[in-house]
């Protein structure tokens, strides 16, 4: 069944052609016990890290990378990672494609002296050097004295002291900013549509629910505050419609032209009969 070797390699891994066949043994330069191999490969922090390792391991000049050689080794390593079923981040494959592209550019005949910036490797070299700076400095920072490892803070208990219970204060503007954040995030979900609804309807919905809550039925007309202006009545009506739509209340009329009653569709748990 295994005809992989004869089959043309799938388009997803064009660089595998360089290798010609699947990697069945460890790269010759790796002298690491197999148990540690997985750990070793997992230790790479991405394609740049792996490339830097390959370059340094052979004392190659990062400013003049033998791209064909490095590409081949890089592909060996990521094939090995695949064989070990390490989760191979897309970035590794992207880098393989980038290397292949650089390699093909380098194969083009050179008619004149290449300027530095025309070197197809220039961008790769810049990224490698940039990453290397931070990689090196992060190791230095890791070695700095730090609390919990090299610095132990001195503290006295405050057992004699009853800490006052202070509740955080918020400003109205904090609330608005928070909601703006919510909206901004929600914008990313295209399925969510926010319409600017009149708040008063929302508020009225809550009021109505409260009014109904606890009693079995409330007369429809009791929901209205007739001292309110027409707009207030409309808002209440809209709130009732909205609550009906949301299946929160039910509006019933026993007979034609009879009294309309409103009841909660779901009662408070404490009232639940079953």
């Amino acid at each position, binding site marked *: 069944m295994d005809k992989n070797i004869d089959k043309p390699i799938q388009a997803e891994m064009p660089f595998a052609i360089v290798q010609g066949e699947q990697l069945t043994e460890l790269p010759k330069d790796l002298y690491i016990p197999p148990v540690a191999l997985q750990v070793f490969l997992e230790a790479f922090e991405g394609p740049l890290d792996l490339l830097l390792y390959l370059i340094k391991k052979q004392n190659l000049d990062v400013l003049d990378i033998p791209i064909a050689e490095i590409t081949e080794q890089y592909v060996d390593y990521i094939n090995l990672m695949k064989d070990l079923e390490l989760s191979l981040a897309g970035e590794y494959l992207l880098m393989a494609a980038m290397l292949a592209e650089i390699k093909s550019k380098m194969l083009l005949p050179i008619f004149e002296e290449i300027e530095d910036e025309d070197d197809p490797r220039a961008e790769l070299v810049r990224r490698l050097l940039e990453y290397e700076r931070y990689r090196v400095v992060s190791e230095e920072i890791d070695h700095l004295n730090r609390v919990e490892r090299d610095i*132990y*803070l*001195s*503290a*006295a*208990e*405050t*057992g*004699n*002291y009853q*800490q*006052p219970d*202070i*509740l*955080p*204060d*918020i400003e*109205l*503007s*904090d*609330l*608005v*900013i*928070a*909601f*703006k*954040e*919510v*909206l*901004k*995030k*929600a*914008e990313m*979900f295209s399925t*969510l549509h*926010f319409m*600017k609804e*009149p*708040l*008063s309807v*929302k*508020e009225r*919905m*809550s009021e109505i*629910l*409260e009014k109904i*809550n606890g009693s079995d039925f409330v007369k429809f007309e009791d929901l209205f505050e007739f001292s309110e202006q027409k707009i207030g009545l409309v808002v209440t009506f809209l709130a009732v419609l909205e609550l009906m739509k*949301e*299946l*929160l209340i039910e509006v019933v009329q026993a007979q034609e032209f009879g009294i309309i009653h409103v009841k*909660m*569709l*779901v*009662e*408070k*748990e404490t009232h639940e009969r079953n």
Partner: protein
Amino acid sequence: MSEIKNIVEALLLSSGEPLSADRIHKIINSKKSCTKADILETIDELNIEYNEKEIEVTRVASGFRIQAKSSINDFLNIIYAEKTPRYSRALMETLSIIAYKQPVTRGDIESIRGVSVSSSIMRTLTDRNWIKIVGYKDVPGKPAMFSTTNEFLDYFGLEKLTELPDLPDIKEPENLNLDLEPETLNEVTAVSSDQLN
């Protein structure tokens, strides 16, 4: 002995937990020969030395620890009063959703925020009397519907929910960030000058 006393003091201050005489003895004896009686003696000496200080060695169930004397409680009050606790972003966002979209279920809040709502946030908001359950939605599971309370309005000095500030039209994302920008820049400047000076 004074050398051991200083080590005991620093250990008690920096251990992060009470230490028994046995434990202190074991720790110090691993490098410097001493007896458990020595340790107990140094603790007495420390307390004599602390007589005029504002700290003291006390004994609790799991061992000895150093604590501040109650004479500095007045000062501690000032420190803790300054330390205004802050609500998390998650809490503020949850509250704002309830305020602007009420009545809402936890599920509504979760689908808007894209992450689950922690029970502790809902409890904090309920304990603060800012939100309450106004009913249960007639869908499977009968989820509670939350609204803000009058106390919530009172807190901000508002009479009605309609007095909540209007939001910019969210269809135009530029509106959202316009007013944030200058603030942001100030903050950046503040931080860098702070850390670099």
